[in-house]
């Protein structure tokens, strides 16, 4: 099968949906004439023009809120946040308006908006630009959240997100944009709430999402080669909805769990997984669930330290070996 980058996979997904549905419009800072700060939308403005790709002023609350309003009337806006960290200036529009307008109207209003952009550290952009708010968004009923780790997942989930009639927050990763992976020519979609077992093993279950899945897979290889530990790696793909069964099936098989996330630990996604696993697979656990998260401080700039602050292969291996 052909291989393309995560960036190209996203572009394909976006382009196919723009061509499929005239109501799909891409709006964001530098997405059109500049081709996107991270080139995800490269070439799309030339191809689809001013109506379908719009460069926005630096007014995230304004244009995302505008997208929420437009979506109520049937437009299907796909909003790019240059960094998902900038969601913090649009928080109310995203977490109040997008998440509650359906509910507060007694189900009379749909809000089919997608907000997408990179949410990750590891690139030396410092604390203000390295937030990973998937745990906060997933806390909010009314929102859907997904965090693809591979080009295949990125394209399939993006097409699903755009067709979904609820608000979907789609968290990408600047360190993955250039990563290649197999993506079929033929059209496909991936439903939310279906985790993917990206490596199977019997000794330990590693649950992760986003780029940490890639780290976990590398760690799993070393764990098997050097420590004779066969780790199963479960990629959640979507955080809300959450595929608990696939996680639990794996836990019932391996009886030992390591959670890996770039979230800061307090109330990170891993905390929710811990609660769920101990509640539903209590008798299957042979040891406490361990968790590898970003080291609990704002994102540090200094490149070598930042590499240590976010989960990396070494820390994951140590974590795996620490699971009693």
């Amino acid at each position, binding site marked *: 099968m052909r291989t393309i980058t995560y960036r190209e996979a996203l572009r394909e997904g976006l382009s196919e949906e723009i061509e499929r549905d005239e*109501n799909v*419009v891409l709006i964001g800072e530098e997405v059109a004439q500049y081709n996107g700060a991270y080139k995800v939308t490269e070439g799309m403005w030339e191809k689809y023009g001013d*109506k379908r790709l*719009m460069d*926005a*002023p630096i*007014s995230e*609350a*304004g*244009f*995302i*809120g*505008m*997208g*929420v*309003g*437009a*979506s*109520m*009337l*049937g*437009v299907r806006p796909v909003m790019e946040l240059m960094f998902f960290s900038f969601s913090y200036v649009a928080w*109310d*529009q995203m977490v*109040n*308006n997008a998440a509650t*307008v*359906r*509910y*507060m*109207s*007694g*189900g*009379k*209003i*749909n809000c*089919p908006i997608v907000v997408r952009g990179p949410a990750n550290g590891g690139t030396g952009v410092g604390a203000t630009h390295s937030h990973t708010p998937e745990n906060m968004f997933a806390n909010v*009923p*009314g929102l*859907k959240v997904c965090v693809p780790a591979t080009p295949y997942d990125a394209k399939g989930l993006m097409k*699903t997100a755009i*067709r*979904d*009639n*609820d608000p979907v927050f789609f968290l990408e990763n600047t360190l993955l944009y250039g990563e290649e992976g197999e993506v079929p020519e033929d059209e496909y979609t991936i*439903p*939310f*709430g*279906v*985790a993917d077992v990206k490596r199977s093993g019997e000794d330990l279950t590693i649950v992760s999402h986003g780029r940490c899945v890639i780290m976990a897979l590398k760690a799993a290889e070393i764990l098997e080669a050097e420590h004779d530990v066969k780790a199963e790696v479960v990629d959640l793909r*979507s955080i*809300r*909805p*959450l*595929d*608990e*069964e696939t996680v639990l099936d794996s836990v019932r098989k391996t009886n030992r769990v390591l959670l890996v996330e770039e979230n800061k630990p307090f109330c990170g996604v891993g905390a*929710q997984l811990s609660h*769920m696993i101990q*509640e539903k697979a209590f008798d299957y656990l042979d040891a406490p669930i361990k968790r590898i998260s970003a080291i609990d401080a704002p994102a540090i700039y200094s490149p070598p330290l930042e590499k240590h602050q976010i989960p990396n292969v070494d820390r994951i291996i140590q974590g795996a070996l620490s699971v009693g």
Partner: protein
Amino acid sequence: METTELKDKDGVVLSKFADAPVNKKLSKDEKIEIFRTMVRIRRFEERSLRAYQQGNVAGFLHLYIGQEAVAVGSMSVCDKKNDHFITAYRDHAHALQVGMSMNECMAELFGKATGCSKGKGGSMHYFAPDKNYWGGHGIVGGQTPLGAGLAFALKYKGVQGCALCYMGDGAVNQGAVHESFNLAALWEIPVIYIIENNGYSMGTSQKRSSAYTDCLAKRAEGYDMAWDRFFGHDVYEVRAKTMEAVQRAYDTSKPTLLEIDTYRYRGHSVADANAEKYRSKEEIEEYKKTKDPINLFEHQLISEGVLTDDEAKAIDKAAREEANDSAKFAEESPYPEISSIKEDVYWEEDNPDQKISQGRIFFNDEE
């Protein structure tokens, strides 16, 4: 300006805008309908206040009493099919104006399943998308980007229409309002922002919350946006001035910022214990006496020979009865089922036949 005033036999000032095209073209029935709507709004809210005092309404109840001509005047010049409306939490008048029934509105206050939002939204969160009414929003200023979005959608779909987006005089200092103004002007979005200036944000006077030159609407110049400012007690004037903005939106798809001076008789909300502390009793009484929009329009229509005293009384009586009946309806309606708490959260969950997602979407242990 006050020199050329026309007054009727009772010394009530008559409108200078009766001959404005948008008013001149009104039929007798249409004029009476405008009057009836204002009366129905007032009686509905007076009844809702009693319901609140009787303990049937929870949370906040923000009354529009005194401001009726603003919503009714501005919305009544709009096209029922292609114009859209959105406001903040002081949203009952706009709801009745678009044709929502007193029953569904009152039942919503009571938190009943028969409410316009099935009892899920309450006083601040009325919606009727089928009547182009998009709420009903509790976060000050939060509705302003949505208003731009409604108008954006019209332009995107090539529909000639506009969106009227209301806010208070205190709301203008929210960041989202500024971002919306710039977007609307920059992208020529046919949205009309209307500041319902009742002089106060809760207990804070306009002067204590905003720095401005002349008036708030003048801030529009900073965005090269058209603006106007006028009084909100004469429904004819509101219609005439609003129509200019609506026409601008239709013809050029450009936005306008309107500031309409009005007054609320009651406290910020019914819970506002200080309603007469930060305003003098005289200030309130003076407005009621000389500028009550319903009283003014009643005299206007009578002097026009469109309405008789008896007809006016009958309209008022009917409105009171309708309001009382709506309270009875609300009272007798059932509360929503406990199970409904998790309905209307996700479209996909509410439409299982079309559901694609798998996995878990609600996370209580009790499930």
